[in-house]
């Protein structure tokens, strides 16, 4: 039945091809060109990584907004606690055309997860800013936020590069990056036990429980993570005070690598 129905159409098509009618032929050609263009465009877009954002995360008062301002303008600004995100395009170096979108997210407890949700899919890299001076006091909060970032399912899938920037190194009491790394590893080791032992969430059937961080038997180590983690020391304010430059060559080099 259906073959019989198609037969006259096929006949008509064959007739057309034999005796080309310019109008119909041009329409067919146009459709073909459009289809090919769409395919090429989708292919190109897919290739060029659609994730072009570098997120600046961290606790309140870690120095994210000042770092953001310094990277973009080089000037010092008095900042307030952010209540919304700010984003701008950052040129990595003068000659290379590579650029990334820097996004500065608020660190306040009631806002941080919400904004992370919004921007995590577009993240190519994450800079986690840590206040090195207040670290001893805040180690549990820092580790908790870092844990939430690390077990996020989207971020585990994309595995963006992670840089832990130990900020405020211009102050004498600042802890070194090595010390911060050790402390964070210890704290995350404990956290993954307590978090996985927490009572299951109300809707746990959908999510299947929190992801396991690192390897089960051994102590937690940053090398066990699927993403590349680096530690760097920096100072957004700069050792020369407000007038001088900021000290973050490590950060700039890492950004150049990522872009």
């Amino acid at each position: 039945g259906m073959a019989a129905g198609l037969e006259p159409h096929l006949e008509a098509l064959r007739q057309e091809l034999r005796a080309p009618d310019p109008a119909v032929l041009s329409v067919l050609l146009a459709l073909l060109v459009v289809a090919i263009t769409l395919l090429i465009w989708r292919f190109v877009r897919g290739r060029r990584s659609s994730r072009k954002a570098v997120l600046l995360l961290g606790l309140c008062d870690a120095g994210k907004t000042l770092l953001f301002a310094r990277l973009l303008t080089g000037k010092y600004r008095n900042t307030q606690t952010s209540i919304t995100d700010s984003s701008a395009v950052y040129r990595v170096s003068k000659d290379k055309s590579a650029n990334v979108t820097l996004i500065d997210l608020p660190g306040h407890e009631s806002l941080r997860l919400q904004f992370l949700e919004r921007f995590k899919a577009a993240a190519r890299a994450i800079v986690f800013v840590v206040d090195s001076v207040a670290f001893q006091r805040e180690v549990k909060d820092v580790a908790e936020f870092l844990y939430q970032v690390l077990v996020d399912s989207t971020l585990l899938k994309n595995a963006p590069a992670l840089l832990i920037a130990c900020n405020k190194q211009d102050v004498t009491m600042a802890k070194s990056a090595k010390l911060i790394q050790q402390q964070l590893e210890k704290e995350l080791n404990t956290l993954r036990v307590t978090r996985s032992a927490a009572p299951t969430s109300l809707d746990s059937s959908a999510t299947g429980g929190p992801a396991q961080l690192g390897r089960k038997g051994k102590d937690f180590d940053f090398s066990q993570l699927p993403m590349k983690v680096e530690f760097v020391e920096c100072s957004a304010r700069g050792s020369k005070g407000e007038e001088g430059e900021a000290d973050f060559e490590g950060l700039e080099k890492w950004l150049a690598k990522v872009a």
Partner: protein
Amino acid sequence: ERGGSNSFTHEALTLKYKLDNQFELVFVVGFQKILTLTYVDKLIDDVHKEFRDKYRNEFQQKGTLGLLNGTFDFKDDFMRLLRDAEESSKVRAPTVMKTFEQSLKSQKTVKCMIETRGEKPKEKVKNKKNKGSKKEGTEAVAAPGKASAGDKQPSAAGEKEELTKDEILQKNREEFFKRHMKAGEKSSKSPKPEAQKEKGKKPRVWDLGNSNAKVLDYSNSATNGSAEACPVEEFDPDTALGDRNREPGRLYDLEYESDDEAEEEKVVQNPSKPSVKKGGLGGMFGMLKGLVGSKSLTREDMDPVLEKMKDHLIAKNVAAEIAVQLCESVAKKLEGKVMGTFTTVTSTVKQALQEALVQILQPQRRVDVLRDVMDAQRHRRPYVVTFCGVNGVGKSTNLAKISFWLIENGFSVLIAACDTFRAGAVEQLRTHTRRLNALHPPENHGGRTMVQLYEKGYGKDAAGIAMEAISYARNQGFDVVLVDTAGRMQDNAPLMTALAKLIAVNAPDLVLFVGEALVGNEAVDQLVKFNKALADHSMAQTPRLIDGIVLTKFDTIDDKVGAAISMTYITSKPIVFVGTGQTYCDLRSLNAKAVVAALMKA
């Protein structure tokens, strides 16, 4: 999410703020609390408008970099606006009272006098008569029964027909003053008749009191108990029984008159239909306009949507005042915001409301009990948790569930039975202890009994038992102490004082308020009063308030989960546990996104 009110007070300063949602600016003005400045609101509006107009281009074109790089030289403009606002609010000098000469009253007397002078004698007499009668009339109104005084006036006026100007003026002045004196005369005259009355005082007869009961007894003494008391003709069986046709003994259902209501509905609908038709065309254009291009949100656009959302929230068991405040803050956050293409007002408002709800449910620091217990273990002291709440919310049940969870994680628990009031409270906890020990026998945990009950019977002081329990736990090396208190109503002042004393004296690490998910507007009252009681009776600088909430009976509500929002909104503390049943495994932690999804579901 608390954006409803726009002022904030801290110590000696008050801050007022205004949001510009289009360009994401915040304008804050701070002033000393003791000064009540009336021009603040106007000033902030003026500053907002001027700043926005002056730098509008920079915001629109340059974006974030413009904000970072741009210099905003606004100081001169601001000083000018401030000066204008201050001047506009300066208090005017109090008005000077008019002197007697300027008032109309004195002018009136002179005028009246002039009129009588210039008229013919006949008319003079008539006028005078009229004047007299007028005066009498007014006096009759003002002072009834002072006819004697009133009579004096016209007679006096009638007698003196030819007077000099000055004499008349003087006479009028006398009359004028007399009128004022009349009030005095009145009062002086009234005591006289009263004095007369007092002499011949008769005993007052009150209807109800002092008289004999016999006088009041209207009952017919002969008729009590006798059958023929009620005259037969007064009883009409037809009217008494009503419907004669009913079956004897059958109970009929309540009759439901649905016809009238249907009629009313039809009547109401008909006038609304033509308006819908008329609005249809305009509405369509508005919708198209909303779909394409940038339309900024106004209050009028958002109001109907917000009303619906507020009713929806209240239907989902969110406390009424909190729903109102939430909608206010969403309105403030969205006012003036430019919508993107293909977004409707409803979707924007819903999105903003959803974000606000998620934000409410994830407040400050997450309470991680296991982490804190480990910390306390390291310091070799027990971790103390206190449960408080009103009667019947599930404190003891959830205490048992939480101790089960702690044992599963390898911590030993001491339960302190500080409910010394309710019958069976101690036995209940003893049963739980026995069951938990049966589930986790000491052999599995290296010979250590995981759960023990510390009780001192009934009728004792709860705070004392708690203190003893904590020191016992420290000596015996228990990891956690769970203190169960008696349920109490938030209005019961002595019991609230007792609870506050228990918490202030023992300084627990965690104070959990147990609330049931079925509670509606009561949740607000309960939490406010509990927190207030804890704050009032604490001696310390920073009083121990409620640290977390346990939401119980969550399985009884299917999607009316509004109580969670009410409780976290009032206290800003997280919901630590959720109880979903009566077995030991029915303990969950809150999933903010799931709860908000259930709330927003239509």
